[in-house]
């Protein structure tokens, strides 16, 4: 045979390689651990998380993903303070993969940390766990000087869907200096159940950033707030077609008869995504007065628009059986 060997059968006991003097040998052994036949790899990973070499620690922080044991979580929380950036990042990424809400308490112990990186990572890890205890710290996180922390804290509140955070989220959506924080807050308001959030969302339709305006137009449709119709109609004049697409979709969801004119006008816009969305919305509104405009759209250059126009016309007919 030739001078190569089946790689998966390379010699070298994994345990010995994990303790090798050469950091690169240890690092490769750590990479292999999750794929090895060893049954109980957690103790080995914990040792590697405390390795003297930063790259070995970073590799271990990646390899420990999927372990929800408190020792692993504590070790990762510790690595958020690691001197090496790569290790800190790996630890933060792995923490964000946690699924078990029983780890909420451990994470909550770290929310008093002064380091913005650590705090942001902890909030990011808390978000999918949706533990009630994260409400208070996330609310105070909204006033943190670091935008990164405020983004993650806002995210936690959106996932928690706790009525008590609607007021603070409204404030953030209207006033936070950071665009991304405002956008997340506007999206987070999507769990509201009453009109209390309407002023904040309509305010966001006039935000200086189009991404915030886009998010607001979408959230208003998700909430089906009838009081938003006039504002969404105004948003159909936004400079950005992305905002108008969302506004059109929301006007359709709201079955806003008042929007007939702006939606019909959008049927001649150069971007076909917007024409498509306007056609769908006109179908959902179901008002026969849209028929002439839709009949023109049957000759649209985009076949997708033509097809959706057919469906919209059909929808209007079945909503108005008398005709």
């Amino acid at each position, binding site marked *: 045979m030739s001078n*190569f*060997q089946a790689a998966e059968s390379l010699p070298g006991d994994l345990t010995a390689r994990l303790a090798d003097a050469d950091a*690169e*040998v240890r690092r*490769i052994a750590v*990479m292999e651990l999750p794929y090895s036949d060893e049954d109980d790899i957690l103790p080995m990973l914990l040792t590697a998380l405390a390795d003297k070499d930063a790259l070995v620690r970073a*590799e271990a922080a990646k390899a420990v993903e999927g372990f929800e044991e408190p020792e692993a979580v504590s070790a990762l929380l510790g690595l958020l303070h690691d001197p090496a950036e790569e290790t800190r990042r790996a630890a933060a990424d792995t923490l964000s993969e946690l699924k078990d809400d029983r780890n909420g308490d451990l994470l909550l112990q770290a929310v008093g940390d002064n380091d913005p990186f650590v705090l942001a990572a902890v909030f990011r890890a808390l978000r999918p766990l949706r533990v009630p205890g994260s409400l208070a710290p996330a609310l105070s996180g909204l006033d943190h000087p670091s935008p990164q922390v405020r983004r993650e804290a806002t995210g936690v509140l959106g996932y928690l869907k706790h009525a008590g955070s609607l007021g603070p989220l409204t404030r953030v959506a209207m006033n936070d200096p950071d665009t991304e924080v405002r956008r997340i807050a506007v999206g987070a308001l999507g769990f509201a159940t009453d009109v209390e959030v309407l002023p904040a969302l309509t305010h966001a339709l006039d935000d200086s950033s189009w991404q915030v305006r886009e998010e607001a137009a979408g959230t208003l449709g998700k909430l089906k707030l009838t009081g938003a119709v006039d504002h969404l109609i105004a948003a159909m004049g936004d400079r950005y077609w992305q905002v108008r697409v969302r506004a059109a979709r929301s006007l359709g969801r709201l079955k806003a008869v008042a929007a007939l004119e702006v939606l019909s006008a959008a049927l001649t816009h150069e971007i076909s995504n917007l024409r498509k969305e306007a056609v769908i919305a006109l179908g959902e509104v179901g008002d026969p007065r849209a028929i002439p405009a839709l009949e023109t759209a049957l000759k649209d250059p985009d076949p997708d628009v033509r097809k959706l126009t057919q469906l919209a016309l059909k929808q209007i007919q079945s909503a108005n059986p008398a005709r």
Partner: protein
Amino acid sequence: MTYATQRTTVPVTVDEDKCIAHKGCTVCVDVCPLDLLAIDMLKGKAYMKYDECWYCMPCEKDCPTGAVHVDIPYLLR
């Protein structure tokens, strides 16, 4: 039957200064879905043994030292 030896450029190249196969690393060899890479046991370095590449990149992405580079095979370029 008589056979010819034809040369062909291979899409996957390995920077031997960076490759740490001699330290027990076989990541690129393990992840290749077509089993095209091998370790040259004399040099202790990985290399592309067969020109049957799908340019799918796990060998490059998973290499711990950034030693592996995948080019689009010449016929497709």
